[in-house]
């Protein structure tokens, strides 16, 4: 099954076109890594795929559902890790995750399990505003994978994480793992790290000023090409 089918996707912010003519397909269980300098449209692409932004042109199918018409059918099958943690600063990690678990109809045990897996059990009851940025990122990762999504949208997922924390969360973010829905997990990752990002990719998308500059399978991409995108 195809997880993503984009054809001539376009999106504007006001008068400015931030994404234009993006066409690609991604099979279920694969990883698409998106590279590009600041303002290239990476975050906008992820937000469109998450149903948080409507496409202004072209067609978008996510997990077999057309957006924006069938957005309701996609929510709950997608997990997103954005620049912002999508959590309440005044609530603790446990309270935040329990809130999301209730929205997704999940049992309390899943929250306890994920707090354990991201190494936050000890500080699970402290307000997020008192935690370091790296710890908040770990809780945000737990939130993104709480409902075992079929599609993970990760916007620079390793930002703020030290090597030990990265090792801890890596198994939660891996691609291809079977999901409870029976499919294989697909990932779209936005990255600024040409070497590390390339290792994760099955398909590579390079964006420059909202347009496709590179779109090839990993084997056909050199990291120097990606470095070039940032110049």
């Amino acid at each position: 099954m195809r997880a993503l089918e984009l054809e001539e996707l376009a999106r504007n912010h006001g008068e400015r076109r931030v994404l234009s003519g993006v066409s690609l397909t991604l099979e279920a269980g694969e990883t698409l890594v998106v590279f590009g300098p600041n303002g290239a449209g990476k975050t906008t692409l992820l937000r469109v795929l998450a149903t948080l932004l409507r496409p202004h042109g072209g067609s978008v199918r996510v997990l077999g559902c057309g957006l924006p018409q069938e957005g309701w059918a996609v929510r709950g099958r997608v997990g997103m890790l954005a620049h912002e943690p999508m959590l309440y600063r005044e609530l603790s990690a446990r309270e935040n995750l329990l809130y999301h678990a209730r929205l997704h109809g999940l049992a309390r045990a899943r929250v306890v399990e994920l707090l354990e897996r991201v190494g936050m059990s000890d500080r699970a009851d402290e307000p997020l505003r008192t935690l370091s940025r790296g710890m908040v990122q770990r809780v945000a990762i737990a939130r993104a994978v709480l409902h075992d999504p079929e599609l993970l949208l990760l916007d620079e997922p390793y930002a703020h994480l030290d090597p030990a924390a990265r090792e801890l969360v890596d198994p939660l973010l891996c691609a291809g793992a079977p999901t409870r829905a029976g499919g294989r997990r697909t990932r779209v990752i936005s990255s600024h790290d040409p070497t590390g990002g390339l290792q994760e990719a099955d398909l590579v998308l390079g964006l420059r000023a909202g347009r496709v500059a590179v779109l090839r399978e990993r084997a056909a991409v050199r990291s120097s090409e990606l470095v070039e995108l940032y110049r």
Partner: protein
Amino acid sequence: MKRTVGALLRKEMLVELRTLESVPGMSLFSLTTFVVFHFALNRNSIDGDLAAGILWVTLLFAAMLGINRLFVADSEEGALDGFLLAPVDRSALLAAKVLALLSYLVVLELVAVPAFALLLLGPSLDPGLGGLVAVLALGDIGVAVVGTLISALTVRTRARDLLGPLLTLPLLVPVVIAGARASSPLLALHASGTPSGRWLLTLALYDLLFGLIAYALFDFLVED
């Protein structure tokens, strides 16, 4: 839907209990306003139309403080996006926010009405208390629905502190008029004990109308 509203309402209450940003501010504002009126009017007591007007205008402005902050925690750190990604009916957020604002208004009135009776009101509140509770309840529903709607509309704007009151106050004028007219006989020297049915009906119709408008529009306001 019930489960989602419960989860959202629980989160609202937790955030308010942690921050204490809305209810204490609203209550203190009403108390301060009554003290200012007490000295500005230079009268020992007021009743009837004047009392009803002062009570309703004070409650309205105090409510604005809560309305302005209703979506602030959601707009920080992308928390609202977390809700929008969940496979739930977005109307649950409307219901939870209205219920949260309603509960803030009830707490506000538990503080403000006795203080009003103590600082400004001449006649005893006892004969008309039941009627006043009914009028306040209907008025609160209107304020909560319209307040939530406007708060959702302005939350993503930079000038929400300015836009909120500018849009909310004109829409709530009918609530103040109907609320004050319905309360006036209850706060008169020889209180009748029952509010005017005509104005109660006006409030109920207002609540119904804006309830339907809010239900129809809310999804579009929180979505892109």
